[in-house]
């Protein structure tokens, strides 16, 4: 009886052990976790390793190109390692040899004010990731609570879904503008300029992005509520709050996971848009979104200023998506044993 042996074998494994085994077998999720781990490591510990102050203005080194450009200069490639500052290349517009600004002191170059891009990217990542995760969590909690209550309690379905429609119909940017105008100074006074604006942005993004989650969750709860195991729970006498926590929530994990992973991306991007409009963090406070928008002005001179923060955002979003995908599979017992 090999079947029985397998059964006995699995008794010694815990639930989370099984989840971990399944998660590890999902290649995308593992890759996503490694990339996400690297980004997280970079933004949390990076500033202690690359200690250049992101706010320091080295005006003589302004508009330095990324050192990677050096490797595109052809035969002078060996000079990159010895003395990259002496490299010249032929500029077809000016019809003469121009010196390229390159320096190992600024591996990703500097901006128009001479601030180190690498230091800014690392520092900005902290804020962007923190905003992304916190806002995602807030919108997830709001959306799930609204969705579950609307789906489970028929009486509250109408009012809650109309509220959701109302939020979806609100013109977001004017709303954000008003909220930030109204509360920015109060919050700055209470928590200091950076924490205050951080809380405000997380709150604003959170309460304007929960509607999709709420709708999806409500739909799933409605379908789930008609299943017989919910009826069985009622016949046992399980009260509503435990029916929700024991039977409903574990079964709507997949849409919640998907919403969560997409939510991080949306939150990071919304934060960039707010920074761009001057409603987000102060202009000397780097975030990935702000770096991206600052860079757009100089996109033709130094595309790398847009590429690096853009790459950071995309990689974060992509890796989180893969992690969410793997986690969803790992938490589903029907997919797990396979």
């Amino acid at each position: 009886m090999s079947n029985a042996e397998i059964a006995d074998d699995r008794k010694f494994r815990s639930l989370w052990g099984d989840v971990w085994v399944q998660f590890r077998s999902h290649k995308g999720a593992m890759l996503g976790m490694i990339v996400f781990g690297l980004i997280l490591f970079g933004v949390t510990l990076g500033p202690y390793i690359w200690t250049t102050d992101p706010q320091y203005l080295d005006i003589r080194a302004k508009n330095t190109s990324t050192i990677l450009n050096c490797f595109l200069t052809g035969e002078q490639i060996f000079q990159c390692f010895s003395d990259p500052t002496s490299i010249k290349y032929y500029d077809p517009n000016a019809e003469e040899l121009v010196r390229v600004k390159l320096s190992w002191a600024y591996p990703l170059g500097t901006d128009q004010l001479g601030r180190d891009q690498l230091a800014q990217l690392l520092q900005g990542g902290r804020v962007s990731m923190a905003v992304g995760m916190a806002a995602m969590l807030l919108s997830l909690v709001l959306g799930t609570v609204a969705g579950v209550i609307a789906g489970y309690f028929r009486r509250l379905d109408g009012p809650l879904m109309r509220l959701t429609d109302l939020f979806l119909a609100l013109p977001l940017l004017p709303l954000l503008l008003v909220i930030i105008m109204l509360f920015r100074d109060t919050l700055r006074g209470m928590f200091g300029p950076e924490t205050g604006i951080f809380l405000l942005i997380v709150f604003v993004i959170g309460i304007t992005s929960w509607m999709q989650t709420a709708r999806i969750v409500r739909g799933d709860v409605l379908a789930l509520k008609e299943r017989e195991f919910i009826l069985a729970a009622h016949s046992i006498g399980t009260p509503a709050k435990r029916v929700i926590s024991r039977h409903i929530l574990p079964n709507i994990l997949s849409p919640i996971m998907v919403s969560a992973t997409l939510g991080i991306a949306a939150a990071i991007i919304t934060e960039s848009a707010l920074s761009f409009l001057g409603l987000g963090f102060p202009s000397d406070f780097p975030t990935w979104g702000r770096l991206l928008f600052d860079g757009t002005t100089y996109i033709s001179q130094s595309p790398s200023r847009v590429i690096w923060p853009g790459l950071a955002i995309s990689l974060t979003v992509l890796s989180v998506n893969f992690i969410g995908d793997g986690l969803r599979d790992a938490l589903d017992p029907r997919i797990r044993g396979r």
Partner: protein
Amino acid sequence: MLDDKKPLVQVQDLKMHFPIYRGILKRQVGAVKAVDGISFDVFEGETLGLVGESGCGKSTVGRCVLRLYEVTGGSIDIDGTDIATLSGAGLRAKRPEMQMIFQDPQASLNPRMTVGSIISEPLDEHMKMSKTEKRERVGELMDAVGLARRFADRYPHEFSGGQRQRIGIARALALNPKFIVCDEPIAALDVSIQAQVVNLLEDLQEKFGLTYLFISHDLSMVRHLATRVAVMYLGRLVELGDSETLYLTPKHPYTQALLSAVPHPDPAQAGNVERIILEGDVPSPANPPPGCTFSTRCPKAQAICKQDSPEWREIGEGHFAACHFIE
């Protein structure tokens, strides 16, 4: 014979109407009369079979009796308490006495819970037990329904239909109920497994002194299992009687037609059985015909059937029927 037994469940004039809302203002324009005034008793230790065609309200009766719906009218006495009017904590305290076994063993088990936690859910809700006590009780229940104890850490999708139904039965037994509603527990299983599950139900009845309300459309299985049988048509009972009496001498024309549809075990004899083929379809329960609900399809219908609803009366010892023409 049945008179000296005590009724455990007494259902009086049970009504379950589901309202229909239409229009912009969502006004109630009518009601689906899924169950429309039925009365029956279930005696202690017996099995009452409830048969009828699809959509006649059998399952609704089962769910009403366990108060899974808010009933529209009537009373349901279980062991001396009227549960039709109970609510909140009172109803919750009554729940352990009555349990249900469901039709679809796939849908009635939460796919994200292990078998052990499914079976111990009633214990979590109603008993204060330590973890080891709970594990031991789950083990006992799994033994009782014939599942190996080592399966407790598995998930429902790893089991066959019959095994899943056993898990559902173990869950229903967890709180030592007196009364179990079996809502077509064998309809979703194949024939060999049906026999196993039915035998298990019989063994458990003997062992724990259970009382069953057995809802099914499988007439032969009900005949085998039930002490008494009730026949339902369009939300009402048409006949109720001792299992053997009812199968041998059905009085109501609907019962006669229903029983004539049971396949004969001997194919050579099958041709000799006279089959009563009913004309037409079952009327909508939202708009049942006046008078006797069966009058639209009854081969014996007269003018009176379309006007007066026949009285539910005793036509023999413990044998009830609702028809104008039964002596």
